[in-house]
């Protein structure tokens, strides 16, 4: 929900409206920006702001930010209200509300939206001074850095870049698919899937990526947080079997993770060695999970059956290999997310 208006807003009313009929929401984070007192020069003070905007573009930029945040963090609902016109000291300027099943996604999405609003939404502020003069506010010095932390949207006319040529992981990424659904939970509502504090590691296997360009890892991180998992480790390795084995052992035996999701290295190529490394360090395979992943992939693209990923247990740590494409990884995640707490309960001796 996006609104630009001269009138003030009520945090209470906006929050209640956003949360109506959303029983799956368990956490809501609000950001309110207000006009603060500010000594402009040694002999003048700011008494008000005047805000103008670019009607049409402002709404479309905010919609892009909202779409990206919904997809990336798996939140249930977002609201952005931004005021324009003359605003006196202490008055509200902007409201961002993010509502999600769990707090982590709500916090992240709220901050993501305000960080990007500051550098992309076409608003301009003018400070009105007590001397009667006024002056335009320069771009905020730290804002570009704050937004670029998210490695998304930056300098792009669209919300998500299409897969780069370096995104070599083959399996299920027909490039003509609209990318906007990345990171959402499709197969099961977030209300049904609850990882309730499972400790998770996400390991990306790729010869060509680094963590700043790891879209499938980013998507899995968002999904993990959205279902209430705790991201303990995130890593990226080249497709090197020995290094993958060592990392899996370290994360399972030393860090005692409940779940390790790998993405990439599952195809038939000569450097695709993730399943081999996983088998080498695990004892019990869980073939049903990987069968489910391939069956889900087959609903979207026939080449999904070429992914050789396995799921297996090392001690009490479950390792699940997912494809390297963002779409393949998120579809696979959705295919098995609801079963993972069940597996881990049984691993620890619990019944069905």
């Amino acid at each position, binding site marked *: 929900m996006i609104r630009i208006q001269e009138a003030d807003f009520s945090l209470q009313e906006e929050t209640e409206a956003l949360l109506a009929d959303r029983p799956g929401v368990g956490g809501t984070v609000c950001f309110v920006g207000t006009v603060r007192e500010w000594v402009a020069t040694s002999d003048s003070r700011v008494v008000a702001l005047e805000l103008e905007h670019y009607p049409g573009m402002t709404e479309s930029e905010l919609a892009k930010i909202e779409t990206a945040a919904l997809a990336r963090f798996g939140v249930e609902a977002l609201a952005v209200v931004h005021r324009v016109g003359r605003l006196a000291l202490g008055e509200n300027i902007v409201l961002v509300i993010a509502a999600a099943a769990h707090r982590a996604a709500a916090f992240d999405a709220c901050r993501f939206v305000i960080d990007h609003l500051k550098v992309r939404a076409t608003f*301009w502020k003018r400070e009105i001074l007590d001397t009667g003069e006024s002056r335009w506010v320069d771009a905020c010095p730290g804002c570009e850095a704050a937004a670029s932390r998210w490695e998304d949207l930056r300098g792009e006319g669209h919300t998500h870049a299409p897969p780069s040529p370096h995104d070599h992981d083959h399996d299920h990424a027909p490039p003509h698919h609209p990318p906007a659904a990345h990171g959402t939970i499709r197969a099961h509502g977030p209300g049904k899937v609850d990882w309730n504090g499972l400790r998770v590691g996400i390991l990306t296997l790729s010869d060509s990526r680094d963590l700043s360009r790891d879209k499938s890892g980013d998507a899995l991180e968002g999904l993990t947080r959205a279902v209430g998992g705790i991201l303990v480790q995130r890593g990226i390795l080249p497709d090197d079997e020995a290094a993958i084995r060592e990392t899996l052992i370290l994360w399972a035996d030393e860090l005692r993770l409940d779940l390790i999701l790998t993405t990439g290295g599952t195809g038939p190529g000569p450097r695709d060695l993730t399943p081999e490394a996983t088998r080498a360090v695990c004892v019990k395979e869980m073939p049903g999970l990987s069968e489910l992943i391939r069956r889900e992939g087959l609903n979207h693209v026939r080449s999904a059956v070429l992914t050789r990923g396995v799921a297996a247990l090392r001690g009490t740590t479950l390792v699940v290999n997912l494809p390297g494409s963002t779409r393949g990884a998120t579809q696979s995640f959705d295919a098995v997310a609801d079963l993972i707490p069940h597996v881990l309960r049984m691993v620890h001796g619990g019944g069905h």
Partner: protein
Amino acid sequence: MIRLLFFARVRERMGQGRMELPLPPDVATVAALLTHLRGLGEPFAAALAGDHLQVAVNQVHARAADPVGDGDEIAIFPPVSGG
């Protein structure tokens, strides 16, 4: 023709928020358009001085090398400062 929109400080220095102009045939990019406009004398030269301007083509943030064409809506403005 192209439709030019100006916002904030640029609008004030231009003395108006919008205007229409013919697009010369040899102007094909955002950078070339800015150079062309600055060459039209005042108020363009003063309003578009400096290198901190941002441009949107048809309501999408644009970069210097992005194309411009006849019929486009082109907005020129200082860095945004909302929030």
